[in-house]
């Protein structure tokens, strides 16, 4: 029985690999449709979950960066897309304040299982760098092995245009001064 199960699992995995689409190009597009002259997006970056959160018993991907004290404020849009091996992954975007706690920003965007969120990053008066981090998790453990596309879009927008002046894309402001935890401000539709 065990051997049959192992063989069955192997066949399933092989089929998944054989049926994967072949176009894997990583694309950096400048001024993608609907954006400005200094905007870009990075597509074709595929992820699986590579960290483990014991509090929720779910794996996650850590999207992580540093905001240096003399960097300009930035509006970053993060979204997920179909994986190379899983056509419809169920993802959720979370953001942390540096204390170890994370809060959900978006689950099912636009009626899909995928996720999208905007992050406004601002570090004021910092004398050293301030890290920020975003977690991408599966909705629940049924989706722990899904792969997905991680799409990053830089938007050359003001703070208001990025966040409060639009109600379509859930957003979070990460505001800090180099000391943790940072201050997080969420849009009403963040969930």
């Amino acid at each position, binding site marked *: *029985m*065990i051997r049959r*199960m*192992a063989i069955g*699992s192997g066949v399933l995995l092989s089929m998944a*690999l*054989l049926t*994967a689409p*072949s*176009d*894997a*190009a*990583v*694309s*950096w*597009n*400048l*001024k*993608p*449709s609907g954006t400005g*002259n*200094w*905007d*870009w997006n*990075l597509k074709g*970056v*595929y*992820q*699986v*979950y*590579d*960290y*483990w959160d014991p509090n929720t018993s779910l*794996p996650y*991907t*850590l*999207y*992580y*960066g*540093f*905001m*240096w004290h*003399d*960097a*300009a404020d*930035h509006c*970053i849009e993060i979204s997920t897309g179909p994986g*190379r091996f899983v056509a419809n992954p169920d993802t959720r975007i979370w953001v942390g304040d540096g204390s170890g706690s994370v809060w959900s920003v978006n689950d099912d965007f636009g009626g899909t299982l995928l996720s999208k969120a905007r992050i406004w*990053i601002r570090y004021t008066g910092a004398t050293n*760098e301030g890290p920020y981090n975003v977690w991408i998790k599966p909705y629940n453990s049924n989706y*722990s*092995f899904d792969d997905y596309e*991680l799409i*990053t879009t*830089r938007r050359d927008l003001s703070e208001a245009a990025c966040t409060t002046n639009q109600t379509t894309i859930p957003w979070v402001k990460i505001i800090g001064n180099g000391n943790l935890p940072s201050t997080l401000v969420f849009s009403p539709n963040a969930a």
Partner: protein
Amino acid sequence: MLKKIFAGVGALLLGSAFVAQPALARFDLHFASDLADGGTAYEWYMKDIVFTFDAETRDGVMPSGEPYALFKGTDASPNGHCLEISFLPGWSPPSWMQARVNDHGTFRLVTIANLENGGYPTMRLWVHRNTSSGSLPWALYLMPEDGNTEFSGDIHVDVRRLEVSKAGCTTNQVGGAFDPTLNPFPWVAFEGNSGNYTITKGNF
């Protein structure tokens, strides 16, 4: 029994996935440059973008048989953009790799990078749709050394966005990781639009 087996297979897969994948996706704003110029408030740094070359995920095979993966894009912006691109060994890298461009049907070599000993070979990319309309497609063909037709591993790429002019990006390199005590990095420039474009390169 079935539940135990599924749990076992699941744990094995989960463990494999955790080991085999990049530690994190990283996007730093105003990266730290400990060499020249430091960078500006609008620069950023993205680490460990993975390019794979196995038959299922590569983008194609060169006429000479080597597999390639594409780093490509479409530029609809009238502004010029500069990237500094560094190549790192992946989990199963080739000893050497190269970046080529398709210049009107001819695959021209931009750089050859030694990935042994950790290497950190670097090049620069300038993309500029310098016309009033249209868009400019560009592509780097990343591939192993000539003759390595069986390669199926991976490489990693770090990208820095530099806020510099074309000259600052290419012929008179400033900013980024450029070290004035070393030779300037190889560079390639895509200019024009899809109907009429030029590709120039230097330092190789």
